[in-house]
Each structure stands twice: as structure tokens, then as C-alpha cells.
């Protein structure tokens, strides 16, 4: 089976049934079930999430991107510090970056000041962290490949050209 194709479809449409996936890919359903189980076991499929636009809810939520400059450890490089950073439940993602800083960390909290306090108390104080720069997310236009901002949402303007 075209593994990449299955993964690409799943990445966009996690709610499809295995029968529907099999039909789309021209495979047997049992093979699709096996392949998904294999990907889950191998850590290729890491989970199934729902993309929520929190801005449209009453929930208080703030997100920030934090640039961390760190000094890598002699034996473990960046891995050890990254491990410490990602242990915090406030941390949503941690990427090792090329360029002007080392770790890109996404943090969510109830308010901006929660996040600021978290960075100051928890991240900045980790041994090996040289500096932090916190950038608050003001609005999400697009996330996970999906347009969030209603001004930019797709409107299907197609009509029938068979009408007259």
C-alpha cells in the first residue's frame, strides 16, 4: 500500500472509517487496519486530535512561542534540556531549530501573565538556558492546515452553469 498516501489522508481526515479509507486507496479494509496498527505501534501515527478554535469559545486561553537559546551539554547535546522543557504540561511543542536560537517552544496557559510567569520561573531557570524571548500569539489565522479566521474561510461560490 502507498504508505505515504494513507498517512496523508489520515492527517487530514482522521474520522474516516477504515472501510472508507480502503475504498479511497483502492485497498482491502483488513490491510488498512493492519497498516494503521503497524504505524501506531512503530510510533509513526502518534495520536488523533481534534482541531479546536478556542478563540470562538468562552474559554480563557493564551498561547506563546518562546525562543530558547541554550548551551548544549557535552554528552547529551540538546536532548537533555529539551527533555526538561517538554516535561511541563504547559508546553505543547518543542522543536530544535536552525538559525538564531535553539529551541522553539509553544506554551499555552489561561492568560498571558500566566505564561510570562511560567517562562520566568520554570524555563529561564533551567540549567543551560541562556536566554528566552516570548512572543504571544494574538490570533490564529491558520492552524494544522485549516483556516481559522472566519474572514478567510472558504465560501463555495460555484453554481450551476446549466441553469438557463
Amino acid at each position, binding site marked *: 500500500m502507498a504508505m505515504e498516501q494513507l498517512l496523508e489522508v489520515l492527517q487530514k481526515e482522521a474520522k474516516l472509517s477504515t472501510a472508507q479509507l480502503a*475504498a479511497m486507496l483502492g485497498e482491502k479494509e483488513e490491510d488498512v487496519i493492519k497498516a494503521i496498527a503497524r504505524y501506531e505501534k512503530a510510533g509513526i501515527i502518534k495520536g488523533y486530535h481534534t482541531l479546536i478554535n478556542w478563540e470562538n469559545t468562552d474559554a480563557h486561553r493564551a498561547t506563546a512561542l518562546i525562543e530558547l537559546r541554550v548551551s548544549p551539554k557535552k554528552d547529551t547535546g540538546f536532548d537533555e534540556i529539551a527533555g526538561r522543557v517538554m516535561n511541563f504540561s504547559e508546553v505543547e511543542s518543542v522543536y530544535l531549530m536552525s538559525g538564531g536560537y535553539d529551541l522553539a517552544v509553544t506554551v499555552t496557559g489561561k492568560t498571558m501573565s500566566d505564561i510570562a510567569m511560567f517562562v520566568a520561573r520554570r524555563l529561564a531557570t533551567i540549567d543551560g538556558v541562556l536566554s528566552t524571548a516570548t512572543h504571544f500569539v494574538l490570533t490564529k489565522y491558520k492552524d494544522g492546515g485549516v483556516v481559522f479566521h472566519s474572514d478567510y474561510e472558504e465560501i*463555495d461560490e460555484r453554481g*450551476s*452553469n*446549466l441553469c*438557463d
Partner: protein
Amino acid sequence: MIDYNSIVNNTVRAIKPSGIRKFFDIANEMEDVISLSVGEPDFHTPWHIREEGIFALEKGRTRYTPNRGFLKLREEIASYLKRHFQVAYEPGQEILVTVGGSEAIDLCVRVLINPGDEVLIPEPSFVCYVPITQMAGGVPVIIETKPENEFRLTEEELEEKITEKTKLLVLPYPNNPTGAVMGRKDLEAVARVVERHNLMVLSDEIYSTLTYGGEPHVSFSSLPGMKERTVLVNGFSKSHSMTGWRLGYAAGPKELISLMTKLHQFAIMSAPTMSQYAAIEAMKNGDEDIAYMRTQYDMRRRLILDGLNRIGLRCFEPKGAFYVFPSIRSTGLTSQEFCEKLIYSKHVAVVPGDAFGASGEGFVRISYCYSVGHITEALERIEAFLKEL
């Protein structure tokens, strides 16, 4: 008060409207309608192509182009046709850029048809061939293709309709609305008849990039001896999601292209300039877009086919375009009744098959130019609809 009916052209007045207006009016007034009815891609024109259109505007390139279209564009079209379909056309004299494939069809018919000439039109097919023939003074002769042949045109069906007056055969494959394709063998059989009876062919290949399941599209003019008998019509609308740019082309014998250009220059002057700049980019760097969109359509095609067969609407496997054409005979309803009931009870819009010719009765056209989520939702509603019948 002027009685306009008495002064207008009789032929135009007599042309039947497509008859599904009422049906779309219903759809437009409803909320929460899931439509599977349109005949154009849901993909946007790829950005690199749109950008070339924008650049053309920014640079003020907004004047007429040569009547035939920019030579650069015709060269790129020639290269594209050679690359994808192994047909060689000389860009200087054998290609004309038109306002959509439809204009090319109209020009071709008007150039070839004298009053009384018969034009063979396989149906079900797109709605324009009959009125265009009538406007040219020709006589449309319908060939009803059959579901047991997967709506392909057979040698026998063709032979049966030929008379002394037959001038032109329209070959609308890959087909809207059935999704039928003609393979090489099918076309070779048609070519034998065409040769034998000295016919001309209008090959409308607007869906040529959208074929699935292995065998790539075969251009009719690539068959031995057929190039001199064929006007090939194609365009950018379906292959590059460029419907609104209104750009297509005809490729054929230079004598015919030259006469078509004569009509085009008086009625149209030249196809839209910004669109032509965008189209050059589409021809040069658009092959990956084509492959991507085809892959996406193919997955949706299999999804919807599987879904329809599962819920009991028998459907042959369409190998082209972006439509499925299931039989609804098992419901005991006519196509019109089926579509009306479906939209009233479940707010799902599909097109009655008889909109594409009488032989489409008993079928509906379902388009899969929609997102996977949209398609699965529609399938669920159709399933519920069938259960309630």
C-alpha cells in the same frame, strides 16, 4: 409594444432551455444544502499560475493579444500536447486560443457545417453540442450510448446513424456526465468508421488529464490518419482549475484553424490577455498540479463509488472526468422525481441524468469536486433517503 418573439431569430427562440432551472432555484432557496451538482473543480487555480495573472495586471499588460493568442502560449500548448498525448501541432498555424473550450466547439461546428449537414452527437453528454449545431443550421443526430457499454460509443451504434448527410462526429470523452472514457481500441474502431465514411471529428478532450485506473487518455488525433480529420478541443478549466479564466484552445488542420480564427477575430478579437499570461505558466510549470489534483479526485472517486454501491445505487466504474453516474432505476422514480425528492427531504442536490439527453433518464449525475467530508455527509443523507423510500 414590440413583440420580441416575432422579431428574434427563430432558431434561437426554438432552442430548448436546459430544464433544470427550477431544480436549482429550489436548491438556492434552501439552507443547509449539500450540493454534489457543480461541474467545476473545487481546487483553486494553483498560486504560481494566479501570480502570473497578477503580474500581468501589475505590469499593465492588459491590451489585445494576436487573434490566435500569444505565440508563446501556442508554443507551450504544442509542447504540452506532445508531452502528454503524443500529438504534434505546429503552433504558428494549427492552434487557436479561444474563450474556453466552448468557443472552440462553437467555431469548429460553424466552420464545418452547411445547412442540412448532420452532426452525430453521443448522449448522455454536455448540453452545448445540440444547440450549437442548431445555430449553425446543422441537424443534430443523437447516438444513445448505453450503460452496458459503460457509455462508450461503439462502432455499430455509430455506423447505424450515418447517412449521406453526415458531416461531423462529436467525441466527448472523457465524458461529462457519465465519466466514460474511450480507450485506444474503442477509438480505433471509431476511426475505421470515420475513415470509411469520410467524416470529420470534433474531439472534446477538456477532461483529458482526469483519467483513472492506469490507461492514460488517448487523443483521437494521435491515431493514424485521424489528425487531418480532427479538431481537438481542450482548455485549462478542468486540468488546471481555471474555469473562470475563460481560456481554451483548438488544434487541428491549418485550413480549419484559419477559418475558425476568422470567426474568432470578428466575434471575440482575442482571448483574455491576463489569462493567457497565466496559462503560459500553467503549461510550463503546471504538470505537478495536474498530478496532485488527479490523485485527489481519484481517491474521492473511489470513495463515492464504494459508498453508492454500498447503499444500493448501482454504478459502473467511471474512469474519467469528475462525475459518477449511478442508476436510480431501483427506486422506481424518474431522474427528475429522484432529484426533487432528494433535495426536498434531505437537502442534497444532484443533477437528473436526462438533463444530458433522453438516454440519461434513470440516472443521476453526481459530481465529486467536493471535499471528502462533504462527500461522506452527502452519502449518509442519500442512504437515509433511500431507506425512507
